[in-house]
């Protein structure tokens, strides 16, 4: 089972994609580790490391970078929200 990854707003534009599906690599067990794994792909993925105050959600709940990730999860990365 893959991890579904979503990107929003300025991050989505910087990456040129809104979503991808990924077989969770061995050893990746947290949101932060997943972020680092993606950013290590080089440009434009480094935006995941440079976005100020990057936020993340796991299964549609906002959580910190230390939150656990497992196969089958939906993980989203985005800049701080600006609604309202």
């Amino acid at each position: 089972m893959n991890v579904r990854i979503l990107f929003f707003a300025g991050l989505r534009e910087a990456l040129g994609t809104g979503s991808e599906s990924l077989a969770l690599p061995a050893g990746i067990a947290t949101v932060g580790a997943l972020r680092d794994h993606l950013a290590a792909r080089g440009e434009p993925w480094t935006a995941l490391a440079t976005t100020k105050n990057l936020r993340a959600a796991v299964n549609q709940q906002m959580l910190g970078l230390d939150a656990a990730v497992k196969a089958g999860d939906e993980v989203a990365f985005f800049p701080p929200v600006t609604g309202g």
Partner: protein
Amino acid sequence: MSVSVQQADFDAGAEIAALAAGRDEVGAVASFVGLVRADKSAAGVGAGDSAVQAMTLEHYPGMTEKALTAIVDEARGRWDIYGVRVIHRIGRLLPGDRIVFVAVASAHRGEAFAACEFIMDYLKTRAPFWKKEETPAGGRWVDAREGDDHAAGRWATDGD
């Protein structure tokens, strides 16, 4: 239905009336309407070409409704309130357009005001919406305001 995410505009007066209709224990309805400002970019650029010509609201379908419902539930746990209505618009909006509506009905004004402001503060920091402005200088994503984190932080309690 207490939470809506929609492209359509809303009628604040009708929503306020609906919260009190047929419930004669309601003595107070506090509400808030947020609108698209044009005078200066919310992105914080002070230069001349910063007038906002339009704004597009992106959101995270599926999570948005859950996040708003969780915020409303938290308000219901904190205050003795009888009804809550939250509407957030998405899509392209023009200066002067309504963006967001929050209304809270209670017996007394103190709880209605507190819960309404709480919901707005949490919505600003926890609901997955993002604004992109169109200006004469081009499009740009609005930066989050530090003041919004501060406003939401006011409501933190030992139990949080």
